[in-house]
């Protein structure tokens, strides 16, 4: 049983480390803010959560804290990414190779100075 848990921990840690490395390489190499944000989302959702899954098998005490931390990360990381992307859009930072902009109509309606009704 110890051997099986050890193999699971080694696999989870190696895959999580690979996701972290890929995320940071994407953060360095990708062309604009939004694609970089897309790459860094992988680091928290896959990298750290896989390390925490390894901790679920390897730490002998208190799996409750581990599960709470996994839930907190799965809730918090996408919300933070969406907030940063919204701030970037409202600051007017340009995106490269934008094929379609769904937010343009919404921004026009919000900035419409004509009174309603």
């Amino acid at each position, binding site marked *: 049983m110890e051997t099986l848990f050890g193999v699971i921990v080694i696999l989870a840690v190696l895959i999580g*480390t690979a996701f972290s490395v890929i995320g940071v390489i994407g953060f360095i190499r990708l062309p604009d803010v939004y694609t970089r944000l897309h790459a860094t989302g992988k680091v928290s959702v896959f990298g750290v959560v896989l390390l925490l899954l390894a901790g679920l098998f390897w730490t002998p005490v208190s799996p409750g804290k581990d599960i709470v931390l996994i839930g*907190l990360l799965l809730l918090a990381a996408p919300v933070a990414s969406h907030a940063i992307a919204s701030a970037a859009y409202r600051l007017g930072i340009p995106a490269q190779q934008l094929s379609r902009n769904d937010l343009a109509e919404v921004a026009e309606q919000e900035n419409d100075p004509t009174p309603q009704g």
Partner: protein
Amino acid sequence: MIETWVEWTLIFSLAVHIVLTGVCVWRVWRGQNVIDRLIGADLVGTLALAVLVLIALIERTSIYFDVALGLAALGFMASIVLAKYLADQRVL
């Protein structure tokens, strides 16, 4: 036998994560715009969380998970508030 392999894997992963944290700190220093630096700061917080989890796994104690919980909650709020402040030029 398997414990030795797991320990070496964890130490290797710890070294990789420390190097990645250094790369992100360099990126925060030499960012292209302010949102780029904010993403870098968020990523530094996430990688510090990973380093804390790896130290907890190497030492086989759960006290580092408490630190990681506090860091995750406060880092999340810091990212949200900084993004809102940059977009609106006010906090509330």
